[in-house]
């Protein structure tokens, strides 16, 4: 057995994660060629690297198949019910910043808050005969936020990509999506609602509360946490 560390398998998120561990004396890398999804760990004993899609890391942590995992706070909160009882946040890694926001067409000069959005949704439903559509892939987070804020007369429509384009294509009236700079939103003539920030997310190192540990693993995990300066 060994302590399993789940890391996003590609792109900037993987590289920045490797850098973050590297700066703390734990060298992570791919085992073979660039295309092989096997990892290697140097600088510490008893830790195994598992390369996974960032979206699957919450599920694997929850199932206890990995002990540690790097993924976005947004994904953990969207995918895990009562997430605080499933995983522990060990460290925010300071990159992969992204906000989950609500955006509406910029020409909606009458909508400057969730309160306006709610009133506009009522008028929209009366006129068009259906609830105002908000395109997103973060169904749970958006629904909980709008419930807490007492926004009514909306519906969520699923959008797994190119969400900013749904308004122009008339498959949604508003969007709830991840943004880091807001440039894609502006290019698509959308504006962020000032009180529409649902969650501020960044890459975070999580520990599974359910993954089984042998005595040996427990020591390896403690050594890793000490090495990373998180104790």
């Amino acid at each position, binding site marked *: 057995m060994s302590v399993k560390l789940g890391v996003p398998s590609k792109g900037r998120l993987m590289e920045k994660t490797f850098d973050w561990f590297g700066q703390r004396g734990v060298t992570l890398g791919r085992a073979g060629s660039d295309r092989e999804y096997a990892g290697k760990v140097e600088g510490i004993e008893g830790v195994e690297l598992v390369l996974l899609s960032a979206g699957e890391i919450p599920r694997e942590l929850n199932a206890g198949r990995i002990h540690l995992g790097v993924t976005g706070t947004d994904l953990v909160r969207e995918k895990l019910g009562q997430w605080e009882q499933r995983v522990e946040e060990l460290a925010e890694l300071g990159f992969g910043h992204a906000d989950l926001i609500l955006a509406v067409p910029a*020409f909606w000069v009458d909508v400057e808050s969730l309160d306006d959005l709610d009133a506009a949704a009522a008028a929209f439903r009366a006129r068009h005969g259906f609830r105002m559509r908000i395109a997103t892939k973060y169904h749970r987070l958006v629904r909980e936020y709008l419930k807490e804020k007492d926004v009514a007369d909306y519906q969520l429509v699923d959008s797994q990509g190119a969400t900013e384009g749904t308004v122009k294509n008339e498959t949604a009236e508003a969007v709830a999506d991840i943004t880091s700079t807001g440039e894609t939103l502006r290019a698509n003539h959308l504006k962020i609602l000032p009180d529409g920030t649902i969650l501020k997310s960044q890459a975070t190192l999580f520990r599974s509360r359910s993954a089984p540990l042998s005595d040996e693993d427990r020591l390896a995990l403690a050594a890793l946490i000490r090495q990373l300066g998180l104790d």
Partner: protein
Amino acid sequence: MVYRSPDKAQVKACAAALRTRFESAGALPVEAPVLVSSSALLDLYGEDLRARAYTTSDTLRGEQMLRPDFTVPVVQMHMAEGAEPARYTYSGEVFRRQEEDEARANEYLQVGFEIFDGSDPAAADAEVFARIQTAISPLNLKAMTGDIGILMAAVDGLRTSDVRKAALRRHIWRPNRFKILLDRYAGRTPVSPARVALLKAEDPFAGAAPEIGLRSRHEVAARLEVLRQDLAEPAIPARDVDLIEAILDVRATLPNALEQLRDIAVDLPAISDAVETLGARIEALEGRRVNTAAVEFEAAYGRTHMEYYDGFVFGFLVERRPDLPPLATGGRYDALTRVLGAAQGRPEGIPAVGGVIRPGMVVELGGWA
């Protein structure tokens, strides 16, 4: 405390006995499908329902929900079959998603009793309450009642624009936003300078981005016009707001609550009819030998979780066990029959009142030998 499901055979026997009891009160036993099309339910309750109901789908029928209750299918059936006066009973599983508390059951039996009849609403309210109370009387539960119709009458009676009344009515089941709206209309929260500037601008669209999407520039302009008119609307007098808050503060036994509400009605005559509806209901309950002095009343009881229940509502609670859900609940849902009836060419709906019992809890609490 963990909710432990008792022996299923016992629960089923208890459910069957309850249903037989309602059948002998003249109710026709009805069935409902377990899978119901989610579009009607979502249109009715909105996205919040997804947090409470399980959804599934196939490629032909699209999205389906495991029935979260029987009320909607029973009303749909009733409206489709002519909407003549009728009474029904049913018994079956309902399914509730639990994302906060694993100890709560996500499937359980419900036995219901529903009366569709507008000839004597007070008598129908009293009959449903009394029959359910009698059925679970060995358990000595605390009876809570409410009536959102009194708050609705107060809103309708406000000296303010129809737009404001409609906005308040729309959020009557969402107390926080209702309060925010009321404070704004009473002039307690000022309109922001930016908003005033926008509404006074010669061309509010000056420099705005291009028009995109289904909500047109015309609709934006129409809402700006509504906001402009609202800016000129006088504030709701503080006294009227205080009276609404006084209604929401009423918490007493039924006879005492009636007296308190009659006092409020002296200053707010708009609620008089609704208060006398409560008076007639209390008389009808006493006619059915309900000890009304032992029944609690809160004007806003059930307000946050019984959307479309627009009159009498009730619940039977296990005292000193706030962890347990109510064992029985019910109420009048005339508004629901109007909304569902509209889809079937019967926008007038039909006065309807009903209630459900959870036989699993009856057995668990020892109310079934």
